[in-house]
Structure formats: C-alpha cells, structure tokens
C-alpha cells in the first residue's frame, strides 16, 4: 500500500479539508495539494497497485502504464493551472467540486476494472454538474439539470454494457474490447461516446459549458471529454466506425462555430471539433494514430483551457458573453489578448505551437494508414479552426467595432494561470520530444520538415485571407443555433402537448364512455326494456322507410321518447306475459324432443 499513492486520494480526500480553511490558508492549501499531485504522478513507476477483492471480483485502483501515466501527467498539470486561475473565487463548494472532479478523472485513468471505472465516472458527472449549478442563474440551473440527466443516461448505458460484458466474458477487467459487435460492445461504446461528445450525443457539452462558472468551465473543458478519449484509446482502438464519427464531429463543430455568437459556446463547438481528431485517431488504431490521439489530447487540454481562461477573463471583467456585445477591448486587455492568442494559434496548429506537433500526427497517421480523404477533411477542419478561434473570436472581441465597454486586466492569479498554460503550449511546440517521450508507443514522426511547415503556414495564412475577404459576411448575429438538444428541449414540449391534448382527450372519452354513457344507457333501458326495445326497433325500421312514412315514424319515436318510460304495465297485461312464457316452454319442449 505504501509503495504507491493514488493521486485521487489527494484530491478527493483533500477536498474534505477545504471547508475547514479560510482565506489565504485555503488558497495555499489548494495549490499545495495540486503541486503534491503533480509530484506524485511524475514520480510513479509502472505496475499494478491497490488491488483488492470485492464479491469475488478483482478491483484494481492503480493500473499504471504508459497510457495512464501520460493522461495523469496532463490532468495534474491542468488541475494546478485551473486552481491557480480559480484562486480569487471565494466559493468553498466550487473548489470542492473541482477537486472531486479532478480526483475522479484520475480515478478513471488509473482504474483497472470496470466497477472502479464506473464509480469514478459517475462522481465525475455529479462533481462537474455542480460547476454549472454554481453560476446560480436560472439558465445555468436548467442547463446543469439537462447536463446531469444526459450523463445519467450515459451512465446507465455504460453500466448495462459493463454487466452484459461480464455475462459474456466473466471478467470486469478493463482492456481492449473484442470487435464482435455484441450489445455489450455497443452499450459501453455509446456510454463513452456520450462523454466524448460525439454528435448527435454532444449537445450536453455546448449547452452547459457556456453556462458554467468562469473558472468551472476551464476545468470542464479539460477533463470530461479527455477521460472519454482515454477510455476509448484503452478499450476501443481500431474501431473503424470511429474514424468517420471523428471526421463528422470535427466538421460539425466547425460549422456551428461559424454561426455562434456566445463566446464560450463557440469555444465549446471547437472542443467537439478537436475531440473529433482524437476520436478519428482511435478509430484508425495504428500506433501512430493512437500516439496522435493521446498527444493531441495532451496539447488540447492545455490550449483549450487557455482559450477558456482567456474568454472567461473577458466575461469576468466585462460581464458580457456575446460577440455582438463585445468589441474594441484591445486597449484595455492587451495581456489577455496576447495570452488568448497563444491558445488560438496553438489550436490552429501554427508551427512552434503545441497543436502543430500533435494534430499533424493524427493527419499523418491518416495519410500513412490509407485514409487520404480523412486527412484532407481534417486539414480543412484546421482551416475552420483558425477561422473561428484564431480570427473571428479575437477580432470581434478585441478589435472590430468599439462596443464602448471598458475593462481592466483580470486579477493576477488569472493571468498567471493563463501564463502557465501559454508557456506549456509554446514549450510543447518548440521541443515536442518531451511530449513524444511519454506517449504510449515509440514515436517515429518528425513534425518539423520543410514542406510540412510551409504547407501548414500556407493553409493557415490563406484561411486568414479568406477571412478578411469575407469579413462582412462573418459579422456575428444575435441568434442561437438549434442543435440536437432541440429534441429534448422542444421535443419535450411536443411530448407534453401530446400528453395534454390528444392523450388526455382520448382518456377522457374512454372514461365518459365506460363510466357515464354505458351506465346511464343501461339505467334508461332497464326502466322499461320493452318500450326501449320498441324505440330501438322503430329507429332501425325507420331507416328503411321513405318519406313521408319516415316522418310519421320519426314523430312517433319522438312522442314515445317524451313519455318514456311511461306506463309499463298497460300495454303488456299479465295474460299476454303468461302466454309468451307458455310459448317459450312449448318451444323448449319441442327442441328437447326433436
């Protein structure tokens, strides 16, 4: 037990102490825990630790290999950056939620069996949902609820898949899944794809991230989708459908980002887009592609967090979140602008920045693996990425028409958090070997070849040309774009209308028919069955008659109805009843003897 320390213990265990500390002591403690976690992960050696037996099943908390290590490195580094950025926040619960969130993500990464994985997976969903709720606005509570419900759905899917997988194989151990297309295979895959935000299961992300707190969104942008990439690399490498899903999601995010007006929703659509590269890499499944996915996840966590921090700083200092309401901020927030741009250039894949050395690995893997169309489409996406993140967003926030908003630079801790992330984005881009050295497979890839550098620059700079030529067309508009969350936001109204109108009306009719119409008819009938029958028969008879006879019968029926039940005895004296009964008996006797 002592040879290895689970970093989740530091975060989840450490979270419990946070409420007992106040002010500076609390801030110092938060940083200390995050720094300790970095130290712990970077001094880890490979092996399997903290195993136990639960109901006859092997439980593994610590499966440490190259794949889990590289994710734990970036997760702990990111936790430190995120906490630095959030230091000015005086919301103990939010800090605790962030700690639980980071801790459970690390729990998923080191989990060696599905039960452990599932438990941490669910803690992640709840802890991160709190980061949305913590905004305490009506829209945030609603978006957070939708977020939570969608993740619970994903959790149910995952759990069902895990149990079926256990029935099939008799094991809960996590490992590459047999590509047999069983129900368990697809249920687990869907559970993971929900967290990876693969369309059409992605709407929870772009719905909730823009409503999370400024600091919470930074954490969210880093952990949920990337733990999903981790488990996909671990369990579903080479699942070919993922290549095309990845390409579709990469393009999907780009298209929506062009239309988007909300700053952080625009960035969220580019999470979907960038995770598309990673999903496609997992689908290709070659060593180079998987390396590409992992390194892109590593780089993405840092530059995307940087972008969210930059956008968050603008929102924090101006109180506005829409491109149409912002503009001309370069005079007031030059540092924020420069730091944001480091992220924007890194995500676009400019040489000497982190995106260049990781994204190109996925694209090259597609080229080498025999998917040239995939490579072409992913290259097109990188143009779209630069267009929205590197040009459109900064242009309309920091330049463009002056919105008249004034602001000050954000607090020092926010700038330091952004500075750390920016430093790493450049460091990875300048010397990628440090990152390549910790990837799961040996790397045989050199990003800095002359044609590759000039090719990337040409793509990006001519994208910039296109942007400035079509600048007027790109002016942001105060709209929102319908996405697949329409189905549960509007769809639920259709459902309620259906329940309210046709279903209820139908139900009411059934009620009236069985509990009102039939009984009252029976009561009416039993008051004078013979007269009632007579009326009924006359009704039928009338239908075969022509005018004017028909009119006469109609008139008679009216009269009979008016006096109904009338005098029951008079038209049917006892004598005739006796006669009828006698006839019935005779008939019966005849039948009996025949």
């Amino acid at each position: 037990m002592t040879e290895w320390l689970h970093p989740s213990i530091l975060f989840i265990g450490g979270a419990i102490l946070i409420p007992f500390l106040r002010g500076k002591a609390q801030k110092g403690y938060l940083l200390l825990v995050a720094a300790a976690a970095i130290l712990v992960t970077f001094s880890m050696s490979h092996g399997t630790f903290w195993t136990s037996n639960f109901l006859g099943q092997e439980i593994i908390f610590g499966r440490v290999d190259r794949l889990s290590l590289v994710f734990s490195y970036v997760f702990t580094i990111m936790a430190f950056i995120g906490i630095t950025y959030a230091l000015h926040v005086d919301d103990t619960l939010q800090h605790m939620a962030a700690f639980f969130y980071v801790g459970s993500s690390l729990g998923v990464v080191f989990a060696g069996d599905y039960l452990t994985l599932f438990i941490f997976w669910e803690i992640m969903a709840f802890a991160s949902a709190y980061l949305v709720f913590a905004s305490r606005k009506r829209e945030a509570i609603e978006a957070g609820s939708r977020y939570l419900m969608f993740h619970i759905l994903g959790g149910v899917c995952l759990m069902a898949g895990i149990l079926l997988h256990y029935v099939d194989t008799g094991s809960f151990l996590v490992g590459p899944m047999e590509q047999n297309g069983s129900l368990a295979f697809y249920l687990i895959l869907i559970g993971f794809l929900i967290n990876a935000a693969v369309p059409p299961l992605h709407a929870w992300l772009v719905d909730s991230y823009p409503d999370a707190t400024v600091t919470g969104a930074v954490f969210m942008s880093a952990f949920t989708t990337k733990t999903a990439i981790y488990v996909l690399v671990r369990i579903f490498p080479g699942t070919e459908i993922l290549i095309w899903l990845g390409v579709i999601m990469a393009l999907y995010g780009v298209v929506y980002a062009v239309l988007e007006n909300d700053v952080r929703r625009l960035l969220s659509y580019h999470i979907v887009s960038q995770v598309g590269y990673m999903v496609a890499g997992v689908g290709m499944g070659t060593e180079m592609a998987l390396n590409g996915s992992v390194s892109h996840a590593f780089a993405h966590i840092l530059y995307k967090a940087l972008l969210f921090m930059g956008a968050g700083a603008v929102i924090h200092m101006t109180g506005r979140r829409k491109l149409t309401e912002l503009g001309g901020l370069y005079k007031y927030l030059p540092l924020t602008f420069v730091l944001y741009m480091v992220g924007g250039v890194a995500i676009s894949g400019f040489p000497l920045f982190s995106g260049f050395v990781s994204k190109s690995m996925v694209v090259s893997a597609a080229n080498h693996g025999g998917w040239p169309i995939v490579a072409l489409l992913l290259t097109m996406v990188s143009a779209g990425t630069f267009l929205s993140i590197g040009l459109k967003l900064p242009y309309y926030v920091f330049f463009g028409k002056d919105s008249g908003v004034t602001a000050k630079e954000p607090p020092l801790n926010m700038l330091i958090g952004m500075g750390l992330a920016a430093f790493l984005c450049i460091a990875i881009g300048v010397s990628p070997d440090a990152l390549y050295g910790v990837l799961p497979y040996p790397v045989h890839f050199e990003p800095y070849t002359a044609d590759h550098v000039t090719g990337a620059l040409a793509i990006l700079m001519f994208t910039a040309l296109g942007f400035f030529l079509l600048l007027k067309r790109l002016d942001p508009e105060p709209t929102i774009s319908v996405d697949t969350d329409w189905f549960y936001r509007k769809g639920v109204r259709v459902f309620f209308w259906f329940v309210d109108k046709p279903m209820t009306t139908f139900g009411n009719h059934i009620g009236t028919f069985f509990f009102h119409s039939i009984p009252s008819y029976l009561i009416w009938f039993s008051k004078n069955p013979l007269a009632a029958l007579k009326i009924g028969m006359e009704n039928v008879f009338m239908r075969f008659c022509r005018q004017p006879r028909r009119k006469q019968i109609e008139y008679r029926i009216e009269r009979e109805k008016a006096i109904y039940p009338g005098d029951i005895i008079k038209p049917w004296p006892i004598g005739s009843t006796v006669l009828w009964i006698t006839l019935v008996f005779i008939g019966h006797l005849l039948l009996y003897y025949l």
Partner: protein
Amino acid sequence: MIRKAVNYLGDPKNIRRHRITLWIILALVFIADLLVPRAHVEHLWDKIPGWSAFYGLVSCVLIIVVSKFLGYAWLMKKEDYYD
C-alpha cells in the same frame, strides 16, 4: 511593450499597413511553399504547385458559405427560441 504592440495592431490608423503586411506574408508563404522540395509526397494533390494555399483559401470560403447557408436556412433562431 506588449501593450504598445497590441495598441499598434488595433489602431484603426494602421489598417493600411496591416493590409500590406498581410499581403507580403501571403506572398512569402506562397513562394516558400512552392520552393520547398517534396520528395516524399504521397498523394496527387500534394504535387500541385500552391496546393496548400489554394486548399486553405477554398476551405475557408467553403466553410463560411456552407455554414451561413445552413444557418439561415435552418439552424439560426431568435435568442428566446427556447423560452
């Protein structure tokens, strides 16, 4: 220093200069991409001179046109759509 640089970038008086700078950069990148040796190209399109520049520009225009078309035709709604 950063403040000065950013102010220079954002000052509306300098737009003409920025435009010239952009054209110069584009020309340099385009020429560099033409001159670079391509010994190990794998696909047909990589052999077309100026392919990257062309593809970058076309991608950008295509993405803007297609997105805006989809947006106006179908996706974009008023902000109170869900209220």
